[in-house]
């Protein structure tokens, strides 16, 4: 380490030497969150197992076990059997999508109108639209039952990521199911992170400011974030509801909607 390097280390240490975190509270909070993640993971695993059993059971009930169809033309029957024996492999959430796969978006104005239509918002504001074509980011604020709902979309695997020294990103970059209970892979290979109600956080923001959020990394390269609040604004404004105004199911329906693509 050079003298200058040592200087930087010393500077970082001195600037943070006198921090006095409440260790006991942080550890307690970490353990509580950890237990909660464990519980959700167990529930998620159980629900997933039951869903598989349900699907298998339903298929067993629907698929004919012989009968009139068994007298079909043997050639057609063979083709059908062959098709079901070689299903395409499930999409891999760890594989970065190619730029060609990216679905084009509707225009910013159309997107604004669709956000309004799907959320029933009384107003939708266009906050940011990337005109450079780099990550094609768009950000909108919708007013739903007087509270703010933020909707954003961007190309997560855009050329800037790689040009800046990053590895190409895959849908799985959003979260890891092993450690985050509400991190799931959708059947199309997209990765979904759901974060239930929590204080919005930030310096000086009251504890009564709550948010519920969801982030989707689509299989083709879009990152969609939806944040529902119980307040008129993220850091200021007033509390207008006990809970964030959209449920997780509504937010998921919004994020996974095909309305955003041309």
């Amino acid at each position: 380490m050079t003298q200058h390097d040592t200087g930087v280390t010393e500077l970082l240490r001195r600037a943070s030497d006198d921090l006095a975190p409440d260790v006991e509270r942080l550890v307690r909070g970490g353990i509580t969150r950890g237990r909660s993640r464990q519980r959700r993971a167990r529930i998620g695993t159980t629900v997933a197992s039951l869903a598989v059993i349900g699907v298998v059971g339903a298929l067993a009930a629907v698929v004919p076990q012989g009968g009139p169809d068994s007298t079909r033309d043997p050639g057609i029957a063979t083709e059908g059997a062959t098709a079901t024996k070689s299903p395409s492999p499930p999409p891999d959430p760890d594989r970065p999508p190619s730029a060609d796969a990216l679905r084009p978006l509707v225009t910013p104005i159309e997107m604004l109108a669709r956000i309004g239509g799907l959320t029933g918002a009384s107003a939708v504001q266009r906050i940011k639209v990337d005109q450079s074509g780099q990550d094609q980011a768009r950000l909108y604020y919708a007013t739903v039952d007087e509270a703010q709902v933020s909707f954003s979309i961007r190309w997560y695997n855009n050329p800037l990521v790689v040009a800046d020294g990053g590895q190409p990103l895959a849908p799985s970059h959003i979260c890891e199911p092993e450690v985050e209970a509400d991190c799931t892979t959708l059947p199309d290979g997209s990765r979904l992170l759901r974060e239930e109600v929590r204080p919005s956080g930030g310096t000086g923001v009251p504890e009564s400011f709550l948010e519920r959020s969801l982030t989707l990394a689509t299989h083709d390269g879009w990152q969609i974030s939806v944040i529902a609040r119980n307040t008129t604004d993220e850091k200021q404004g007033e509390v207008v509801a006990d809970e964030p105004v959209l449920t997780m199911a509504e937010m998921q329906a919004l994020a996974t909607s095909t309305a955003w693509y041309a």
Partner: protein
Amino acid sequence: MPRTSEEFEEFAVARTPQLYRAAWLMCGDAHRAEDLVQDTLAKVYVRWHRRLGAPIEHPVAYAHTTLARTYISAQRRRSNHETPTEHLPEASDDRGDAATGLALRAALDELAPMDRAVLVLRYLEDVSVADTAHALGVSPGAVRNRTIRALDRLRAVLGPSLRDLLET
């Protein structure tokens, strides 16, 4: 064999001050730093108690990698839904070396989140270039470039006061 809850608590109590220090230098905000530390501890807790799979080989390194990844991941998610707002004053009652803290804070605020994370891992945690690259999901070359860029930026912002700060 998974480790016990008592062992986790012991580990967490011992590591939290250093995790918080790193988190504070990355976030520059006491509340977000606390949130980041608790999220990190929660993730380590889950991994610590997993019944299947080998126990964490190097818990300290694992915790700091988790912290850095959680920070970067949160920044990626925040990057689109946050609009610039006037900087809120940081509560300073938990920081003693006020001059150093304020000067460095201003300088760090000039850096991109990934650059801050690189500086903290490399200079505060003394993590190698290769391990920093692994933790942050970038190439070693990118870590070197970001380090140079971040240090240049610090010099530009702190100027001659950098030497003064180190001498006082």
